[in-house]
Every structure is written in structure tokens, then in C-alpha cells.
């Protein structure tokens, strides 16, 4: 069906970030009030499947999680006694408690990982995206650089666990060294960081490349006329012009890195010692190995609050709050 010209009075093109746009929309023209009531019921039927899934698999678990965190809770017997907010108080303030030490240690490791991974997860994809933008050949380079991001954590870590072996691993054979990549610090963190950058840079590259293509071509032409080379144009034009997309990629990478679990779980086992155990591994360990589900639920809830705050920042930014 061909698209006819727009009607007067409202636009068919809404600004994509204007998530409140529905307010401006007129409803379907329903004349009689009976038809309107019937229309309301059918509208609910459209949203019902989502609401049922959302209620049962997001909203209810959040409430249930808070309930669990207020009890002693064992996965086999379930509820074994009300403890109120004492688990939270213990986690946050009781320095002598093992749980509290795990919580703060895990949180510290997670924040450390965010700090050492996000700069690379922004810079490396930006350099690749810019290179592809300048060199051309996007239909060749983009999918090839993107592909590792489609692999599972299991595939990625089992490959890297093999090539990072101290004895006989490919990396040490090439370097002619015996670096303890997975079993000593600071190598263990370097390996987790390296593997994560290798794995997920392609995804960020796609978004940054799209950001570069949205820039007016004239900004690059102007730099070329001034005689700026590829490298100086990168710093003087590409980085400042694409900054909003860089911030966006930085935020989604922060959220992804905050959720770190599979790479240390499968590469280092959280070790040596507990030195690469992020908060998620302590939550998993307390909940499913040590059977302290109340404590694990409380840790997870606190971590959830921290993450939701970051997401809220992202939402605020996406709606133009940064401008």
C-alpha cells in the first residue's frame, strides 16, 4: 500500500527518543461509549500476555526476593525464620561478618573490573569503527569484527582457557614465556579483561560505527582540506563529534561489566584465592552452594539497586538529560 501524504495536525515521524510521545496521540475514533468500553477491553487483551509474563517473571520475583532476603532461607526447606532487616545490616555494616566481607570484597572486584574494562570497551571499538569508516569495506569488516560477540561465554572461555595455559598454551608458546595468565595476579585480571574486550568489542563497534555514519560528512571534508591526517582527524573530529554515542556505549558497557560472572567463573574459578570473584559469584556461591539464600537474595537486591541507579542514569541520558 503506497504511503499517502500526512494529514494536517500531527506527524507520522516521532522523535525516536521521545518515549512520552503516546500522550500526543489521538485515540481511535470510537463514537459511541459502548464501543469505547468494548475497545477498552480489547486493548487490555493486547497487553495482557506481556503483563502476565512481566508479573510472574519480573514483578513477583522482585517482591519474593525481598521476602526471601528478610528470612533465613534454605533452598531445601525454604523459609526457616524471620530475620527482618538484619541481613542487610550485617552485609553493609558488620565488618566481622564473613558475609559482609564477601559482599564488600565482591563489590570491590566488580567495580575494579568496570574500571579496567570500560575504557577499553569504548576505545578499542571506537578505533576499529573509525578505521572501517575511513577505509571503507564496511560490508567486509563489520561482520568479521562483530562475529566474536555472537559466541557464548562458554565457547569464549573454553578457547581462551586453553590458549592461556601456562604450560603449552599458545600465547606463552608465541611469546616464548611462562606467564601465569590464569593462576596469579595481576595476570588473572588482565586475562579476564583481555578476553572480555576480545569477545564484546564488536558489538560496541557496530553502534559506534552507526554513530559515525550519522555525522555530517562535511566535518571530515573540512578536516581533510585543512590537511589533517587520519590520526589527527580521529582526535580532533571523530571523538568530540561522536561523544553522545561514546557516553551511551560507556553506560551499556558499565552495566554489562557490572554483571560480570561467566568469565571469572569459567576462566579462573574466581581465583587465585577469591581475587577475581565478583559480587555475582558470591551471590551464586552463597545461594546455590552454601545454601544461604536469604543472604544471597539480600546481596543481589543491593547489587540490583546499584545497577538500577546506573540504568536510570542511562534512561535520563537517552531522553536528552545530558544536553
Amino acid at each position, binding site marked *: 500500500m503506497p*504511503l499517502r501524504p500526512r494529514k494536517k495536525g500531527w506527524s*507520522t515521524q516521532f522523535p*525516536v527518543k521521545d*518515549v512520552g510521545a*503516546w500522550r500526543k*496521540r489521538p*485515540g481511535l475514533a470510537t463514537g459511541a461509549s459502548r464501543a469505547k468500553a468494548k*475497545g*477498552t477491553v*480489547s*486493548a487490555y487483551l*493486547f*497487553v495482557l*500476555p*506481556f503483563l502476565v*509474563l*512481566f508479573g*510472574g*517473571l519480573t*514483578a513477583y*520475583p*522482585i517482591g*519474593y*526476593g525481598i*521476602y526471601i532476603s528478610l528470612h533465613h532461607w534454605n*533452598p531445601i526447606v525454604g523459609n526457616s525464620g524471620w530475620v527482618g532487616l538484619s541481613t542487610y545490616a550485617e552485609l553493609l555494616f558488620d565488618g566481622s561478618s564473613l558475609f559482609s566481607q564477601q559482599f564488600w570484597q565482591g563489590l570491590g572486584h566488580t567495580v575494579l573490573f568496570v574500571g579496567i574494562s570500560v575504557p577499553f570497551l569504548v576505545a578499542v571499538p571506537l578505533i*576499529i569503527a573509525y578505521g572501517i569508516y*575511513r*577505509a*571503507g569495506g564496511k560490508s567486509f*569488516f563489520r561482520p*568479521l569484527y*562483530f*562475529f*566474536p560477540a*555472537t559466541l*557464548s561465554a*562458554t*565457547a569464549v572461555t*573454553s*578457547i581462551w582457557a*586453553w*590458549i592461556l595455559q601456562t604450560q603449552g598454551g*599458545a600465547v606463552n608458546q608465541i611469546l616464548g614465556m611462562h606467564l601465569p595468565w590464569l593462576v596469579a595476579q595481576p595476570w588473572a585480571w588482565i586475562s579476564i579483561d583481555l578476553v572480555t574486550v576480545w569477545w564484546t568489542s564488536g558489538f560496541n563497534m557496530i*553502534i559506534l*560505527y*552507526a554513530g559515525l555514519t550519522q555525522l555530517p560528512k562535511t566535518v571530515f571534508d573540512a578536516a581533510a582540506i585543512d590537511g589533517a591526517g*587520519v590520526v589527527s582527524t580521529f582526535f580532533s573530529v571523530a571523538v568530540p563529534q561522536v561523544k553522545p*554515542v561514546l557516553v551511551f556505549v560507556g553506560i551499556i558497557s558499565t*552495566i554489562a561489566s557490572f*554483571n560480570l*560472572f561467566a568469565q571469572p567463573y569459567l576462566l579462573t574459578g574466581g581465583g587465585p584465592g577469591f581475587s577475581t570473584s565478583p559480587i555475582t559469584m558470591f551471590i*551464586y556461591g552463597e*545461594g*546455590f552452594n552454601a545454601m544461604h*539464600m536469604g543472604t*544471597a537474595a539480600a546481596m543481589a537486591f543491593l*547489587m*540490583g539497586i546499584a*545497577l538500577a541507579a546506573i540504568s536510570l542514569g542511562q534512561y535520563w541520558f537517552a531522553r536528552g538529560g545530558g544536553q
Partner: protein
Amino acid sequence: MTNFHLRRTWMTAALLAAGLVVLYFPLAWMVSTALKPLSQAFDGQLIPAVPTLANFRAIFAPGSASPVLRWLGNSLLAAGASSLLVVTVDSLCAFALARLRFPGRRVVFYLIVASLMVPFIAVLIPLYEEFSGLNLLNTYWALILPYGANAFGVFLLYQFFLGVPRELEEAAMADGASRFQLWWKVFVPISIAPMVTLGLITFMNVYNDFLWPLVATTSQNMHTLTVGIALMAIGQYSTNYPLLMALTLCSVVPILLAFIFAQRQLVEGISTTGLTL
């Protein structure tokens, strides 16, 4: 001047190509190791001296300790069913939010915004207890349903539906179409591209997910490929790298095929959704 710029372009392309060699080395090493017998695993050669398929034969042999095909089936079923579920449920919901007016729409809208911010880890423990209480651990329900409440997809399709011209809708309504017919006959056909993107992204996320299937499946026959291989890798194969690499290669092949088939759609989809969300 032109020659100078042309040379710069070729240098950039050469650097990108060199980057690909580094990027793909681990995958090449996986393939190489998978084709070596255990005795030559540590020989440091990229090209196996005596390539063998023995590792693959061992994996697929009847009675093998790793039911790879069963795990692959579980993964494909979970990923396929969740993608269909997400696309259908999200499309219906997005249609109502974008095109219908009803009391409480605002509440639904903000519920969806809020649920975008709930990290999975916050519901891991209660979700496990919920499925445990319903006796649904180690079932396909557990591997499919938790991915169904996908607020991201509602947003994606909602943005798309907002841009659909009103005239299409009015023409259909004038023909006496019901709202369901309007959705099915007008909105679904024109939103195939974003629905395919959403379906692909969901498929890859579910196929590659690790933490939830790790806790939700304890019986070996119900593991997904990622969990099955991870538990094998930690356990008995930890020193038999050729076998582990062959197993890993088997898990990569389906995603590679899907990628070759759908890479354009996927790359374009992430380009647009990345910038809109």
C-alpha cells in the same frame, strides 16, 4: 594529495586486516586443536601434522559422556521458542501502547520502563525458588518462560509502530477489520524487519545464556549446550583440550551458520536499535 589520501586509506585497511588476524587467531587455534590427537595437542603447530576426526567421533559416539546433540536440541528449542514468544507478546503489547487508547496505558508504559532497569541477578534467587516451588526446574518451561518478559522488544516495536501512517490503519478499519485483524493484517506484515531483528537478538541471547540455565537445569539431559560444555570443561575434559575444543567447535557451528545467514539483518538491527534506545 589524492595519492596521499589513497595511501592512507590502504594503510588503514591493512591495519584492519592485521587486526582480524589477531582477532581470529583464537578461533583458528580452536579448530587446529580440535583436529589434533591428544599426543600432539601441545606441539605448538597451527597446522596439525596428522589431522584427525577422532575427537568428533568420540563426542558423537553412542554412550558418550556428553550428549551434545541433546544439548544442542535443548538450546535450539529454548532459543527458538523464546524468540517466538517474545516477538508475539511484545508486538501485541507495543501495538496497544502505540495505537490504542485505554485507561491505565500510562501505568503499563512506566511498568515497562521500570522493568528495563531490573538486572537479572536481582531476580535470580527468587526466580529459582519460584520454579522450584512449581516443580518446573529441569523442564523446557524453565528454559523458555523467563526470557518472555522482554521490555526491550516492546520499546523497539513501539517506536516502529509510532511511525506507521494513520491512513493504513483507517483504511483497514473502514473495511470493518477488528483490532486483532488490524494488528495481524496490517501491523505485523509491515513490522517484519524489526520483528526479525528482535527475534535474532533474543535467539542469540537465549542460545548463549549461561547463568540461568546453569541454576535451572541440574539433570544432564536438560542442560543447554553452554551449560553442558561448561560443566564438562570444568570436569573431566579439563586436561583433554582436543576433545574440549572439538566440543566447543560443535557449539560454535550453529551460531556461525545463523550468523552467515542473518548477519546483515543483525548488524543493521543493532545499528538502529543501539541508537534509538
